[in-house]
């Protein structure tokens, strides 16, 4: 135990050490054993991980949900019945409409809504809502709607295209009469892009710094670790606030998104750098690394070919677990109006409407975009937890 500073993972170092030695060691054993008994086919590390992961129900559910979420993000425009920016002055803050499948004449496979009209009772002045059960508002399956671009193609087909005459706002509308369901889908694109971009930067930086620090050791390691400690000691939310404070106010919305990404990537790499350094330290003293050095392999080759693959599994897990935390913090900043600005659409920005307590009280459905955040955070966490348990297939 060379380092006395607290390990942010809270993991006892010996366990982490064992976890890393095990795959490498057992792989060697498996290779050595293979020629002796030809009937048993040796399993690669990935296959073993997959075998273990498959048995983890939570992890599998998470994986499926993540896959669906990513598909929905890519095909968001195809899935939205309305244009996310199309305003409808006749349906301002209209509440979510309930979906029905049955009429008197039987079952409809595509759910429909009934148009609702509100009138003021001439005697009591109370608002009376009337549901027009005779009219069916049914979207057309693969019908034509608003046009969008997907993979460079100009398209106007939608999975469910909105009916012309009457509204089909299953999650209600916002203050401009824009369809919340379509906006929720559109918001996923920006939120996920920000999360993926930030995580890509943070993971690259974190694993590079971690490997370099762990492999070089000595005085370089010492000072890099002091730097990492500094980033770990910074209170996250106040730091982001302080950085947002100095962003110029006259940026274009798209530039602002990039700046937000930059701000969000300033802190998260440090944690990963710590973990990767720990693993690298453990690996760098193993025999096979010494052997590679003895054969005359260069430093770069050792880092890339011998250490990186063994650290990779932890990096993958860290990536999956970082994405939800970025989604959370981005939503919070945008919710406060400090992050992404209109006309961009992100989940947090949609929730911005709920910051006003009167809005929240009168139109509680402005909270629905939180469903996106919840689903994304939960599924990535489930996948990450499952992967974390699976990357160590030799453990009992």
């Amino acid at each position: 135990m060379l380092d006395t500073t607290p390990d942010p993972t809270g993991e006892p170092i010996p366990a982490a050490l064992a976890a890393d030695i095990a795959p490498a060691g057992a792989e060697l054993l498996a290779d050595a054993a293979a020629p002796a008994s030809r009937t048993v086919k040796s399993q690669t590390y990935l296959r073993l991980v997959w075998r273990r992961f498959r048995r983890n129900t939570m992890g599998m559910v998470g994986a499926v949900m993540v896959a669906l979420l990513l598909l929905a993000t890519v095909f968001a425009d195809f899935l939205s019945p309305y244009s996310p920016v199309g305003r409808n002055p006749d349906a301002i803050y209209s509440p979510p409409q309930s979906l029905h499948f049955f009429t008197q004449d039987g079952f409809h496979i595509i759910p429909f809504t009934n148009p609702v009209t509100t009138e003021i009772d001439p005697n009591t002045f109370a608002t009376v809502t009337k549901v027009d059960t005779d009219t069916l508002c049914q979207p057309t399956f693969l019908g034509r709607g608003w046009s969008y671009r997907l993979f460079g193609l100009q398209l106007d087909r939608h999975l469910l295209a909105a009916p012309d005459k009457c509204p089909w706002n299953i999650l209600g509308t916002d203050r401009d009469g824009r369809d919340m369901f379509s906006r929720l889908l559109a918001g996923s694109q920006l939120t996920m892009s920000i999360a993926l971009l930030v995580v890509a930067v943070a993971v690259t930086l974190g694993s590079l710094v971690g490997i370099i620090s762990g492999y070089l050791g000595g005085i370089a390691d010492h000072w890099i670790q002091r730097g990492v400690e500094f980033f770990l000691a910074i209170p996250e939310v106040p730091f982001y606030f302080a950085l947002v404070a100095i962003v110029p106010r006259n940026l274009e919305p798209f530039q602002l998104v990039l700046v937000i990404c930059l701000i969000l990537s300033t802190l998260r790499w440090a944690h990963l750098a710590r973990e990767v350094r720990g693993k690298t330290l453990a690996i760098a003293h193993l025999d096979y690394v010494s052997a590679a050095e003895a054969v005359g392999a260069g430093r770069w080759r050792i880092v890339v070919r011998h250490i990186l693959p063994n650290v990779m599994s932890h990096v993958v897990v860290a990536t999956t677990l970082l994405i939800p935390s970025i989604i959370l913090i981005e939503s919070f900043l945008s919710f406060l109006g400090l992050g992404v600005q209109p006309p961009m659409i992100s989940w947090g920005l949609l929730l911005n409407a709920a910051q006003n307590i009167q809005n929240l009280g009168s139109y509680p459905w402005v909270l629905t975009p939180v469903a996106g955040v919840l689903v994304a955070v939960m599924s990535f966490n489930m996948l990450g937890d499952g992967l974390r348990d699976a990357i160590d297939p030799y453990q009992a």
Partner: protein
Amino acid sequence: MLRFLLRRTISALGLLFVVSIVSFTLIKAPPGDYADYAAALARSQGGLSYEQSMVLRDQLRERLGLDKPMPQQYLQWISGMVLRGDFGTSYVYNKPVLNLLGERFFRTLAIAGTCHVLATLIGVGLGIIGAVYQHRWGDRIASTIAFLGMTIPRFFMALVILYWLAFVIGYPYVGAISSREFILAPMSFAKLWDTLKHVWPIIFVAAFGGLAYNMRVMRGNLLDVLRQPYIEAARAKGVPGHKVVLKHALPNALHPLVMYQGVAMPYMLSGELEVAIVLGIPTIGPLMLDSLYRNDIWVTTTIFLWLSTVLVVANLLADIALGLLDPRVRQAGTL
């Protein structure tokens, strides 16, 4: 031990130095300084011409030392803080930042501290349940609570609680730190109880999120310790089950948790900030947000500086606690 203390304190001071440099950079980063602000004010409200206001600006710069090179300004700033408690002036309120922060800061600390203690105690409790009943119902329930605490966004939880309190049950204690009649009253048990009625949502949400991490760390460590041979020996000897866990295993599983406390504190502070902003409870959070909306950079940065200082101190305390608990940690420094 003394050497260990000294080393830790020096590195904490180093951290504080870096934090102060970052804060100073943040203050200086936006274009324009106080002299520009005063000149603009003199033009718009005092009726000065552009040339006159420029003269005023230069005079102000000279008087306040804003024309000196950056390192000198930094020294001026930091000595003002340390020696005279001068943290700069809020542009918006035209008051010293210190007066603005004072009481609110201690509220934040008290609330975050309460959350921290609660989250640790409940988290450790759940962690023990999770480890002892591994793969059984107790474990499943504890893990589910932890998972939910980790995944549900805090501001969303706060919004739902706010909606429920304000619109469903009409709770009278929303959006303030204490009721009318207690605002100027001296501290008493009744006032404390009243304050609790106002701030419990913060404590609930922040602690709920924080216990998840404590639970996971505790469960993992305890499981590792419970697999060790000496535990088996104790069981074989006939020591009762609860005694094995609480007396033999638990003390050895606590170390990583103590290490973790320094890392958990930023989480609690951020949680307190988030929930207090949503609920509008006058602690540091809403003040910082307000200063952001109004470009009041001194307030923003001073809050950042203070909170970072708290964290550095908390980390130092966690390190010292660990050193007291574990001789290996103390010794490692002297090697």
